[in-house]
């Protein structure tokens, strides 16, 4: 059964449509990259996808959604807030349990962030904050990952490492990416948006960044 099945969907904020006539099916196991210029509707499409995954997708929103005054450990732990009892959550808030510290530490070492385990997120650099948000999504037990520009604040080498980890850890991955080369390298299917409509939906294999030019060229 498809994880996401949009048929002629329209979405937007307060009456103005941002997405129009969207028809999109995503099956388990797919690695999809949504591409397009800023304002094309990538974030809205991802938000819609997240809302429809009722059985719980892991999410990396563009604004990250981190709690600035909590530590990296706590922010990553929040990925499993729904799996634990309130008491256990409370206990981990006040004094992190060794078992959870080990698990979170393992996630963070994949992201080369293990030395910041107990640093407050507010004191981290932009790239470290982004990796914390990715860590939270990886720690989330869901099989589907929806990530909006998850590597925009890290260098390319690190971006490749992170995307590889994401592809390895999660069965289905839906990304929004502005970097065309990375999108082609790490997705097996590209969905191109322009002015709120899907204008491209093809396998990524064999594509070159220049093939996506028409998504970005000025209209007319």
């Amino acid at each position, binding site marked *: 059964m498809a994880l996401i099945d949009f048929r002629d969907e329209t979405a937007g904020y307060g009456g103005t449509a941002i997405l129009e006539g969207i028809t999109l099916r995503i099956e388990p196991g797919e690695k999809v990259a949504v591409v397009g210029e800023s304002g094309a509707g990538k974030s809205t499409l991802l938000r819609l996808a997240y809302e429809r995954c009722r059985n719980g997708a892991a999410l990396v929103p563009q604004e990250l959604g981190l709690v600035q*005054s909590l530590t990296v450990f706590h922010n990553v732990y929040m990925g499993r807030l*729904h799996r634990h009892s*309130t008491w256990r959550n*409370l206990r981990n*808030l006040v004094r992190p349990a060794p078992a959870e510290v080990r698990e979170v530490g393992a996630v963070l070492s994949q992201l080369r962030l293990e030395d910041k385990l107990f640093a407050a997120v507010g004191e981290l650099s932009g790239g470290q904050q982004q990796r914390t948000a990715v860590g939270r999504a990886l720690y989330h037990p869901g099989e589907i990952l929806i990530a909006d520009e998850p590597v925009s604040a890290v260098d390319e080498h690190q971006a490749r490492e992170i995307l590889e980890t994401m592809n390895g850890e999660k069965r289905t991955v839906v990304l929004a990416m502005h970097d065309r080369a990375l999108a082609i390298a790490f997705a097996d299917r590209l969905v191109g948006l322009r002015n709120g409509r899907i204008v491209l939906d093809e396998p990524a294999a064999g594509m070159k960044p220049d093939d996506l030019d028409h998504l970005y060229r000025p209209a007319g």
Partner: protein
Amino acid sequence: MASLREASPLARTTLAFVAVALVCALFADLAVTTVNPYQELVRLLAGVVTPDFYATDNLGSALAYTLAFALLGVAFGNVLGFGLALLFFSRIVRTGCAFVRAIHELFWALIFLQIFGLSPLTGILAIGIPYAGIIAKVYAEILEEADPAPLRAVPLGSGLISTFLFARLPDAWAHFRTYSMYRLECGLRSSAVLGFVGLPTLGFHLESSFSQGRYSEVSALLILFYVVIASMRLWMRKPLLPVWLVAAAAILPWGLTVSAANMLRFFTHDIVPYPLRAPGGDTLAALGDWLHLMLFEQALPGAAATIQLTMVALVATGVLTMFFFPLVSPLLLGRWARGAGHVFLVVVRSTPEYILAFVLLQLWGPSMLPAIVALSLHNGAIIGHLIGRFTETVKLRPDASRGIDRYVYEVSPRIYRPMMALLFYRWEVILRETAILGILGIATLGFYVDSAFADLRFDRALFLILITAMLNICVDAISRAIRARLRLQTTLKHR
């Protein structure tokens, strides 16, 4: 011919308030009635420079009780206020909080004195109850203004409590802590003032030292009080909080028994309007007479004087602020002058307005003058400090004018809106303080409340307190409407 320029809404509002204040001042009694006020002032100043820390054995205990009531009262208000902030979506809770904070802690103390006598509960609840109302509102606003992004990133199906604890509370917590420190400073002032109605805090000793003209003792008491407030950030540390709370609870005299019968009588008998519980006769007519007397001979004259004094004090506060903020503004004064300015403003704003008014009343005799001066000095120092701090963030171009030109052209226009926002925010606070100054003998509502308590007519006292609370809620609503219309905003930090 039409004028070249329409006055801005803010300027028109300012002019209207100044006009109202001038009319109020015209009818106000501003006489100095003491025979030789300046001789007394000289004696007072002599006392100020010769503090005597050994004059009384009670200095230590007065300070300890002041701290204990403040700590326990603010802690109680904090816990209750936090709980209420979580329920602030409920209209009943919001209204209830507005009501309890509209009644000044001294009025609460007068009420609780009848119920619990001199038991520590009186002081703790007198501070804790109105503070809970204030804290609930501020905490609810902090929670509301918190970043909503973490909430959206919480996994579906996380419990309500876990979500709140992880995604909402942590970022608000830092604001709660800062605000609690500010509240504790207010609590120390409130606690000191509770001495004037009989609790064993600083105010109690201040009043007796004053009435006997022992100004060196007064000076010592006040200096200790300033030191406690100024050093708050040194001794108020998180790990020490439980120690202070336990110590505070331990030193208070809990032995005094509270009579349940007394309590019951207060609620079921004492506060019921007299005609309703008086035997026989025409109850309805008697109640009419009672209401007539209360309204026309007490509530209305009291309310009129309260409003009159409030308006004059509010505008005087604004005028003083314009003089006070340059004292601490890096745009206008050099480092050394600013240092002196800071000391001056700290002393003036740390002195509870009630104590300032009390001092001035001793010097000048009973009229509205001491109250106006005390209220505008205290509030002008508070707002002046905040505005001075605000000017630290203002960047002037390198070739900006200097001196008076700079004050008039560069600085004043920039600070005017935030200053007006703070003044309107403070309006309701000034009203509450004005009412309470009645206890010192100025004929505001507090005067009638105090007299009613002195005559043991609790029904009258409570009726007048309710009138005072309603007046407060009205002024708060008007202030909010004006702030909304003029788009005046205060940031969280400046509450």
